[in-house]
């Protein structure tokens, strides 16, 4: 303790270079995981409400006047959204090795898939809205709330990815030692993906079971 300069060098040399990642989970990682946990609970409550209203309602579901949802389009949407996690993984692994081009191309690919998903959802809505709306009955309210809320999450995820892409295009943002933000956005995106599987099952498959 007699040599303050010594402390400074001891403290800086090893650690300031080690930067964000090597040792242990970062606070950002934990923060994002906790955030996803609370969001996942929210979706669980949403789907729980769907089942609750459905089973309280009675045998016919959807209620009279609304057809059971057709499967083709949602399956296409699934085929677009679920694989979108792959380029995200690729991007993340790339930047961990310091390969910026992989980050950029991976993000761009994910974004493309996400936008396609939203576009498909828009056409799906255009079709459904002719049949029923949010104010038709509780089924309509649930349908639009659940899918709309998920769509909003996709939009937020896309905003994050767009933002990462912008930052990575600028340069000087991410590299092998600093990519916490990329990883956090990736966690979020995988989550948004996984939730869609639960929604597909609940909204589109269970009425046909």
């Amino acid at each position, binding site marked *: *303790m007699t040599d*303050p300069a*010594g*402390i*400074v060098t*001891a*403290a*800086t040399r090893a*650690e300031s*270079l080690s*930067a964000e990642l*090597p*040792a*242990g*989970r*970062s*606070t950002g990682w*934990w*923060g994002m995981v*906790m*955030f996803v*946990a*609370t*969001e996942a*609970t*929210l979706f*669980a*409550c*949403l789907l729980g*409400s769907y089942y*609750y*209203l459905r089973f*309280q*309602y009675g045998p016919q579901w959807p*209620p009279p006047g609304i057809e059971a949802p057709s499967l083709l389009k949602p399956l296409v949407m699934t085929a677009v959204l679920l694989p979108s996690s792959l380029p995200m993984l690729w991007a993340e692994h790339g930047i961990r090795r*310091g*390969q*910026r081009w992989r980050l950029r191309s991976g993000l761009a690919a994910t974004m493309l898939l996400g936008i396609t998903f939203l576009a498909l959802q828009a056409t799906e809505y255009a079709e459904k809205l002719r049949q029923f709306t*949010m*104010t038709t*009955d*509780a*089924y*309509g*309210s*649930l349908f639009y*709330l659940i899918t709309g809320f998920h769509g909003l999450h996709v939009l937020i995820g896309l*905003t994050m990815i767009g*933002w990462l892409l912008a*930052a990575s295009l*600028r*340069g*000087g*943002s*991410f*590299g*092998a*030692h*600093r990519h916490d*933000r990329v990883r956090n956005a990736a966690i979020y995106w995988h989550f948004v993906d996984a939730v869609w599987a639960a929604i597909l099952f609940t909204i589109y498959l269970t009425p046909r079971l």
Partner: protein
Amino acid sequence: MPTTTPSPAVSPADLARLTEHWAEPPSLRAWFSTVDHKRIGRRYLVTAGFFFALAGLSALAMRTQLARPEAGVVSPQEYNQLFTMHGTAMIFLFATPMLFGFGNFLVPLMIGSRDMAFPRLNAFGYWVFLFAGLFMWSSLPFGAAPNNGWFAYAPLTGEQNTPGLHMDVYALGLLFLGISTTAGAINFIVTALKLRAPGMSLNRVPLFVWAIVATAFMVIFALPALNLDNAMLFLDRRFDTHFFDPSAGGNVLLWQHLFWIFGHPDVYIIVMPALGIVSAVLPAFTRRGVVGYPLVVLAIVAIAIISFGVWVHHMFATGLPQLSYSFFSAASTIITIPSGLQIFAWLATMLLGRLVLKVPLLFVIGFIVTFVLGGFTGTMFALTAFDQQVTDSYFVVAHFHYVLIGGAVFPMLAGIYYWLPKITGRMYGERLGRWAFWLIFTGMHVTFFPMHLYGLFGMPRRVYTYRSEPGWDGWNLVSTVGSYLLAVGLLLVLVGVVHAVRRGKPAPPDPWSGDSLEWSTQSPPEPYNFPVLPRVHSLHPTWDERTAESTGPGASADRVLSEGRRTLLTSELDAHRERAVEMPESSLQPLLLAGALLLFFTSMLLAWYPVAAVAVLVVVVTIAVWLWPPRRPDRELGVTA
């Protein structure tokens, strides 16, 4: 048991550097931009205290109205807003934020860190809390305050049954506030997981910190249910959806299920950190550690988990199947066991230690007496048959004031007296404190004990008046008198605090010979908390010579971290040192973001949807700028291609 004073082990040059990096020289800008967890914690305490006073004064107005049968002090419409705001504010704007305030101030100090994990998020959480509280209270002068009770059952809350802004204020206000609570909870969890001083393995984490972390986990998993409920309520009211409309496939009980899936854990969200305060206060005034540390931790975790499985006990009269009632009745019965464990752990601590009968201990004793009584009535409700008789009567009002005031407010008051020297650097006056205690204790029981009786005598809750035939008048008058006593006692607390801040004797670093790390800092702590981050060797670090040494002459150089604004990250379980991290500087962005959200919620309330859209844009841009990565040279980033 040596009491340490802050170590002289750090060179003046280091201290100067630490001050340079951490201090926030007073200025208007610094006031708005601070990210110091101690200032934020203090603000939480004061703001929550302010909302407590408002909610308490509402209660006094209610009690004045109820003092005599058929009184006309307030109109029914006013009374209904008063009790709703009283309940809502006490639960959401006072109890939780107050305890978050203690957590904010204390958690980093207790675990030997220099700040919370996300200091800016912390500041943001405070501003949102403040704005959401003002948002809700400001509806009262307009006569547009929420008026359907704090649990707001559908379909009374629907557009046609309650027109006007009342329930929009409720739904939007709670959604707004939820942002703050969620942010705070995440922050506590990450702070406690990653920022503990080296050596503070899980079995050395103070019980208060355990309690805060368990609370934060409950928030994470409980709050979404409330948020969803309120979102659906708002959609039903404003945009004609039908979630709670039985005539269009909706169901009114959906509201109740979701509300109580949140609501029951919420009552433990309130009591848990308060019990943590009890565990933190006892060692200093019994001169020994709390008996059965592992049992108490187990109890905390058990309560946090079981609390998610009892919600239907608030719906025992709704006519659900008996089978489900027997399940939820059993779960509600079982949840008393971990509470009992804690009570007896504290009693054993007192039976083995040496009692130092200062004001904080008085409040702890008041807590035990009151909370145990409230807990017993809770256990009675767990039996469905009995609950169906007393639910929604004043008997329930008695129960929850016993557990809320006995279980949460008394520990808070113990905490206020206990940590006042640490928070303000001043000592309070013992005599005034004793007066306050006896007035509050007497007032509390005089107010709420009779409610058991007139509840059993058939008086329902939430009635703005009653006739004299049922014979409830005498006891109601007693309650009213008691509530005035209680108010005087609380006023004395306020007087005591103000007096201490203005005229109190300067406090030494460790006036009580406390056991946890906050007592090894200055009173009040320096902006950087610890000149040298300690290395922890036991559950009672301030009583432990080796821990004391780790910040004294034996301090190792790598825990000073005076270059920049830095603190240490350690591993989640064993608290092995991982690396030092740079902490964010003060910033105005949290305030800006919270302001944009206020604009959003206000314009949603008033149906200015284009303004709301602009507010969303501001929110997005602020967050994008806030988190924008700083530019670094490629070599430092480690870019290869």
